[in-house]
């Protein structure tokens, strides 16, 4: 809640985009510009490349709890996460008709196999499996990734997108740098004053940004940052500072995020809608811009459970984020049946335990509607943190 009507209006606008499962905003953009729109699944694709070719990158993150799954369940057994079935549902019910293609980043076997299913279900659209390298040597994994990006670029061009030029790519990199900088600032503000940036609000703003051109989302981020930080009606409360991790692909329902906050948690760091923060700093705009995009992935991407961590200690990145955000507890919050998150969790837990920060864990599905158990668990967790920090 805010006493500034401009902030309320902005969050409402973002909320409308977030609820826009049928991509009306994308259709409208296409009608206005005649450009191509290409969807991408979690976690990360180099949106700069698409933008430089005049393509609108559209971030898809599964379905909301109110999406009725009619056909999607017929494609997946009960022991597979929920995101692919809602994605198939939205594809089959026409919600994604505005998309000229879909990019499937290599993060897990489910997304991988979904790319083949998509080729068969929607033979007219471009399907690109972005085989993100797990070798981070520029001459090996970097060279492979560059070739993959070049083939993506050519495939877009074959569909009618502009040819990729270094000048356009530099400009796009600059725009996304600014966009990412604002997201970093929002996260920094939330770390400093979490009451100013409630996560259920920030989350909706980040989701809304997936459907609009970068120029528009940058404006939205900047306005939100200015309005939220200036809002004096938002005052600190006695909440426990927690870091939420494990929700990088299938997203928790918004009501679950609200539940955590109502249960007494300030979320001071998370991995929701991570495409905005997957590359941690600015990508250089000088030099060979395509190589800069490649290098950013090799050297500056977050230590996601979907990436092979070669030499660093597993969980070091998580501990560093916990320290930087001043988290007093860690919530392991993964989608049920999410292999990368759940296989990673024992290692992450061990890492967190080395720092003596308390943690708790639970699972969700994007279509969950009941949060009583989680509310109690998070409430007890937050209470115990407050009790100990006050002691």
């Amino acid at each position: 809640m805010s006493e500034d009507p401009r902030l309320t209006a902005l969050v409402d606008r973002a909320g409308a985009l977030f609820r826009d499962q049928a991509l009306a905003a994308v259709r409208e953009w296409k009608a206005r510009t005649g450009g191509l729109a290409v969807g991408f699944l979690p976690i990360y694709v180099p949106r700069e490349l698409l933008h430089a070719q005049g393509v609108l990158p559209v971030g898809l993150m599964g379905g909301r709890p109110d999406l009725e799954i009619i056909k999607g369940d017929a494609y997946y057994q009960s022991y597979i996460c929920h995101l692919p079935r809602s994605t198939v549902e939205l594809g089959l019910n026409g919600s994604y008709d505005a998309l000229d293609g879909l990019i499937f980043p290599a993060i897990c076997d489910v997304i991988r196999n979904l790319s083949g299913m998509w080729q068969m279900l929607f033979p007219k659209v471009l399907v690109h499996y972005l085989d993100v390298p797990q070798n981070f040597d520029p001459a090996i994994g970097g060279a492979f990734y560059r070739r993959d990006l070049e083939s993506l670029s050519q495939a877009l061009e074959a569909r009618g997108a502009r040819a990729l030029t270094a000048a356009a790519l530099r400009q796009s990199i600059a725009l996304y740098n600014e966009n990412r900088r604002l997201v970093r600032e929002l996260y920094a503000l939330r770390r400093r004053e979490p009451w100013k940036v409630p996560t259920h609000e920030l989350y909706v703003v980040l989701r809304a940004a997936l459907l609009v051109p970068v120029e528009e989302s940058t404006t939205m981020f900047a306005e939100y940052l200015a309005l939220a930080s200036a809002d004096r009606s938002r005052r600190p409360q006695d909440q426990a500072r927690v870091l939420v991790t494990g929700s990088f692909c299938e997203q928790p329902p918004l009501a679950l995020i609200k539940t955590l906050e109502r249960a007494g948690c300030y979320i001071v760091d998370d991995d929701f809608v991570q495409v905005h923060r997957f590359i941690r700093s600015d990508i250089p705009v000088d030099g060979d811009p395509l190589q800069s995009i490649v290098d950013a992935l090799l050297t500056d991407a977050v230590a996601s459970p979907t990436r092979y961590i070669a030499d660093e200690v597993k969980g070091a990145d998580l501990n560093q984020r916990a320290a930087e955000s001043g988290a007093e507890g860690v919530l392991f919050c993964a989608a049920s049946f999410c292999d990368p998150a759940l296989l990673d969790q024992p290692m992450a837990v061990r890492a967190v335990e080395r720092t003596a920060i308390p943690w708790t864990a639970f699972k969700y599905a994007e279509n969950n509607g009941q949060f009583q158990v989680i509310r109690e668990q998070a409430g007890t967790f937050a209470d115990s943190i407050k009790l100990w920090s006050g002691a």
Partner: protein
Amino acid sequence: MSAAPIVATTAHKDSSQVRQKEMIARHFDRLAAAPDTGTRCAYTFVPGNLTELLLSFDVLPVLPEINALQSAMRGKTAEYIAAAEKLGHSEDVCTYVKSDIGMMKSGNIGPTGQRLPSPDLLLLSYTGCFTFMKWFELLREEYHCPVAMLHVPYQADGRITDSMRTYVVDQLKNVVIPKLEEVTGRQYDEDRLRAHLARSAQAEDDLVWVLQSAKNVPSPIDAYFGAVYYVGPIFSAFRGTADAVDYYRELREEIAGRIRQGKGPVTPDGEVERERFRIVVEGPPNWTSFRQFWKMFADEGAVAVASTYSKVGGVYDLGFRHDPDHPLETLAEYCLGCYTNLSLPTRIDLLTRYLSEYRADGFLINSVKSCNSFSAGQLHILREVEARSGRPGGFIESDLVDPRYFSAANIKNRLESYFQMLDQKRAGASS
């Protein structure tokens, strides 16, 4: 159901079986002695294994998936999985991983009852599945030994591109081989590697002959349950050895003999005397109730004439052979070509092709909870293959090594209804 199609035979072991048993025993003896002899060992995986390269460095492979399935057959995995879950491993994830971790925590006793050596190297090649990567990240925390990572790209568009091949070869040259040199203190010897690869190709020829013998009616082999034994040596520690060449030659001769005599496959409960149904199977078997599961097929006279599981360690029947003239390129092609690294449309094409080439009555999918790599998309495969082939598909669910997910009564019911349906279809077609 009509007269029992199985004829009990006295427990007779073919000489190839005896040979395989001896090969395995010798391998585990060498592993058990490794800490004393100083022999290096690498833990690595079946799909995309680099056995010839390891052997060229005199490194012995240990395959955790094989240990897990052997543990399941010995009834150990319930306890191992429980131990891993107690340590915080999720009930949702692959049970091979949990079985392996539980086994390690329980003393790392291998399938022959001997202790397995700790790895000198974790050779992480995760063809066709992301879980492998997490698995070795977990093991690395336990063993603190060097890891060599070989990332094998996915054949998303149904083909191997030059870029993929180059990427894998670059990693072999710059990551895997230097790491093997470091761990063993020996130099890469390409001539030795070529010699192993030449032996691989010989054995692969004979294996393909054996698998394709199921085109005969009746089929002399069971290409799913029985094939598990046939692919054993080539999928594990023996590809590229003289032992494997001898084993496959002998096996081929035995199967040729069965064809001459018009005999059906041998099962643990006897010989399938009357082949009633010819089935193509997709998905891995269940290992905790392997014999019981097999018997459910054999009792009905259902013979698997082709399977995809027998291709997880290499799809040789489409023509690929290890090529000693291009040692690293051939290893790259091998890794890229394993079954679960194929796109969904390619898997559908392959199954449809098997149905017609092996004159099958239908196909069955055993969908295992553990394995998203196999399972995510199988319901789509079911519908597509049915539509393309016009042959009925059946769908059952179980798990690899977690006995909690093998519901014998339920699976038996489903199989019986499926076979009944095939019978009715056949009766309808002939009336």
